[in-house]
């Protein structure tokens, strides 16, 4: 059965999602390429993925835990709490940064080959996901070192990972598309990431937020994710604020929907603008 393809001005691609399924192998290869190329010709290789979050954890523990003496979540050691927050944040921020620059970085492909362009930023986030898995291994090692065994809640970790992934993809895809048209966004992303690191409860626990601001605080999708991570890994020592969590999840999904919609609208003109 030969497929018929109609190319017309102003025609919406009805077969877009079918195309994405057809190009799934390309997606796998691009994600693999993004991961492999990161560490080619490096001596320490994958260890670089560990060093940064680890050092940040040390710094945050000293600054927020010892100097500012902020309370930890329940009985968990401060360092562990920080690292449990660092993990999803690293996934989100690296994913967002890489996705936002992915289209510009693959500019030559966009003008020469056809494939659904959504593959490019999502493959970039997959590379950040690979780093995340390495960090997860380190976290488990740390938990062993602090003799802090995980409880049954750790089974729910994939859900929160998925929410972080969705938030990263949603915003990343949108900024990637905007970046092609207006290069200013290349500077917006590092700024958001830096600001977000202090606004999100990475270095501290979210229970220091005063009661009247609690729900508003969860408008930042990563707040819900980080809280969820801490609940999963550190057990019932940290409580789970359900209304806040639902709000964060809703915001993440909203970003995903808007991001993909905007991306598809701008996709046609990528080859002309890049």
């Amino acid at each position, binding site marked *: 059965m*030969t497929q018929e393809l109609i190319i017309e*001005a102003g025609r919406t691609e009805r077969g877009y999602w079918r195309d994405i399924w057809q190009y799934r192998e390309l997606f796998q290869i691009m994600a693999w390429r993004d991961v492999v190329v990161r560490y080619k010709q490096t001596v320490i290789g994958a260890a670089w993925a560990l060093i940064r979050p680890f050092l940040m954890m040390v710094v945050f523990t000293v600054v927020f835990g010892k100097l500012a003496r902020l309370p930890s979540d329940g009985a968990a050691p401060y360092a562990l709490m920080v690292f449990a927050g660092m993990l999803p944040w690293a996934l989100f921020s690296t994913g967002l940064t890489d996705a936002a620059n992915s289209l510009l970085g693959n500019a030559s492909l966009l003008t020469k*080959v056809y494939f659904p362009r959504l593959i490019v930023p999502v493959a970039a986030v997959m590379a950040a996901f690979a780093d995340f898995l390495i960090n997860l291994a380190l976290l488990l090692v740390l938990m062993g070192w602090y003799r802090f065994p995980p409880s049954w809640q750790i089974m729910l970790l994939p859900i929160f990972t998925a929410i972080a992934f969705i938030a990263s993809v949603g915003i990343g895809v949108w900024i990637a598309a905007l970046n092609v*048209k207006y290069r200013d966004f290349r500077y917006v992303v590092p700024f958001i990431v830096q600001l977000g690191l202090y606004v999100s409860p990475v270095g501290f626990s979210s229970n220091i937020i005063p009661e009247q601001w609690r729900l508003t605080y969860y408008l930042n999708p990563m707040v819900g994710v980080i809280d969820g991570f801490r609940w999963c890994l550190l057990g019932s020592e940290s409580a789970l604020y359900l209304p806040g969590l639902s709000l964060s999840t809703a915001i993440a999904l909203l970003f995903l929907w808007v991001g993909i919609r905007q991306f598809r609208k701008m996709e046609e003109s990528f080859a002309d603008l890049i």
Partner: protein
Amino acid sequence: MSDIAVIVENLSKRYFIGHQSVQRERYTALRDVIGRNALNMVRKARDLVQGKQILHGDAVEEFWALRDVSFELKRGEVLGIVGRNGAGKSTLLKILGRITKPTEGRAILRGRVASLLEVGTGFHPELTGRENIFLNGAMLGMKQNEIFRKFDEIVAFSGVERFIDTPVKRFSSGMYVRLAFAVAAHLEPEILVVDEVLAVGDAEFQKKCLGKMQDVASKHGRTVLFVSHNMAAVESMCGSALLLADGRCTAQGGTAKVVPEYLREMCRVSAVPLDERTDREGSGDLRTVSLSLEGPGGSTVSAFQCGAEATLLVVTENRTRREVRGLRMSLGIDNEMGQRVAVLDTALCGAQIPSIRPGREGIRVVIPRMTLIPGRYRLTIYLDVNGIIADWIKNAAIFDVEAGDYYGTGRLPSVGEGMFLMDCRFIADRLGQLEAVGAAPLAGCW
């Protein structure tokens, strides 16, 4: 009508280009600079809010790269798309390859489409040849198990077996191109769209590629759209052709009808005096302003004769106020089919042109014996100063070579027999004893 593979109806593509308005005053006042930049910022902000593209410059012009192009292709047909540079050929291929959307019109493609607009798309320098074959193949639309199956064939075609596990950044440019083309050559789409990719690589490789393309077209019955400047390739591979000029289709039909139209158009272009030609590249510090032909003895002629001395007088204009040194001049001679038959280059001959003073000066390029067979030839003139391109005009001029007594016997090869005349001797060898055939070496040869 199920055997029609490609239908294109009124396809058009418009781009917007920005223009910087011309400086009217001789010197720039800071007040004017600030004023102009403020206006620009306001305009860009307004464009941003309206979601329009941001353009550099004050004025915006509409540019139709393609206008009302229509044609139909049956399954298995091979269409050659020809035209001058900038005629819209690549834009047409980009639209058919779904890289960009048309502004008007539509195209219907029946079957799997693969477009080859560049060899080595997606090749990553850090990955090995093997890894890049899978990456590039996936990008071109091949399935992983398909690539697995054809892997050995691809590697054998490319000729880089030894280096297949080395990062591609260590490859020479020739190896790179051979590997890239090898992957592309094993595509099995129903409709193949190819853009002048055969213009890369050495002659042997080009022959191999052309051969493979021919296989694809004739043996496997695929529909091919082929853009080329090489008329010999177009005539041998394509059943029909399409001539594009300034985005419009000016001729369509069998290659026998379209190719002469193209050649006629190229003639018209080179009839414009060199001084006024605008399709040139380069800094313009040094420009070619005229070209004339001289025969033996320095007399101006209208055509060269084979076997006789031929001189090209190139008049250049130095538009700077200093003497120009380090000039390199290269004249490329193409036959009517678009094949490069010879290059006359100061860098190759080891000729040192002394400095050129401001104003006009002439340089004579002397060919002691014209060895080209009779026919029409096109000249491309390239000038560079210390490696920086000063002037480059393709299809700058046309000259004819007429029949002349090359061998002293009054005889020349028949039309279509060879591209060059070569000096030669015939000596009989009675296996040990050398005896010249005839009383003396053939007249005209030595």
